[in-house]
């Protein structure tokens, strides 16, 4: 089932990138997509981690929320950078991620890094080491709002 969905996604990607729609090229694209999907299935990378298509439904609401967070904290970092006295208070902290699957933890760690002002420096199991530009950034991560949001995204 996942192999079929992977083949469909690959074929759609081919169509989007090619832009030439003669029967021969479309056939070549379809054959390539199916071959790639079969190879991926043989190698064993079509499971939940290699092709996390089940997360797509949650992503539709998660990505706009993340974009909003990025805009907010990006503006905060911009103000810090342009502030004459550069009011930074770098803080490092360790938080526990509650998503259970690897894609969930990766999404959480990447979301922390994407929001300006916080980076995930290390990942050990579900322990994330986070470097924050200001103390408030570390407080926000420790409060766990984003953690809860990612867990909801994972379960959707």
């Amino acid at each position: 089932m996942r192999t079929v969905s992977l083949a469909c996604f690959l074929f759609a990607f081919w169509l989007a990138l090619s832009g030439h729609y003669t029967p021969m090229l479309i056939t070549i694209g379809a054959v390539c997509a199916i071959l790639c999907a079969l190879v991926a299935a043989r190698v064993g990378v079509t499971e939940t981690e290699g092709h996390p298509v089940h997360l797509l439904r949650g992503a539709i609401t998660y990505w706009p929320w993340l974009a909003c967070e990025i805009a907010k904290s990006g503006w905060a970092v911009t103000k810090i950078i342009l502030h004459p006295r550069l009011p930074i208070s770098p803080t490092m902290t360790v938080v526990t991620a509650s998503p259970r699957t690897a894609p969930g933890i990766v999404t959480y760690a990447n979301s922390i890094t994407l929001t300006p002002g916080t980076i995930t420096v290390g990942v050990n199991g579900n322990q994330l080491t986070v470097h924050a530009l200001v103390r408030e950034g570390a407080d926000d991560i420790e409060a766990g709002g984003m953690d809860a949001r990612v867990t909801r995204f994972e379960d959707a």
Partner: protein
Amino acid sequence: MSLVVDLLSWLLIVLGSFFAIVGGIGLVRMPDVYTRIHAASVIDTLGAGLLILGMILQAGFGLVALKLTFILALFFFFTPVVAHALAQAALHEEIEPLLAEDRRGRGDGPAGGGTDGRQP
């Protein structure tokens, strides 16, 4: 209609350029490698994001816009990975971050690894 789209895309492109410049300034002003990554992340989220959104409006509805969307998605998937790899490499080189406050000691202490955030 096309005037509105043009104005909007110009607004997005100018805003994106503004954030890219701010990120550049931050890259110079920040004191150490970890804080500089924070400045750079303004460039590759807000800067690149708004620039590409503006370009999508310029391109109009079609394959070019779709490809620009792929580039945007690529940015949002790979820049955090790169930033993380850079910070992790800096930790392994034992570059100590300048910290106002260090709360790392409170972690549960993962088996094998230390509590400073370095991965085994």
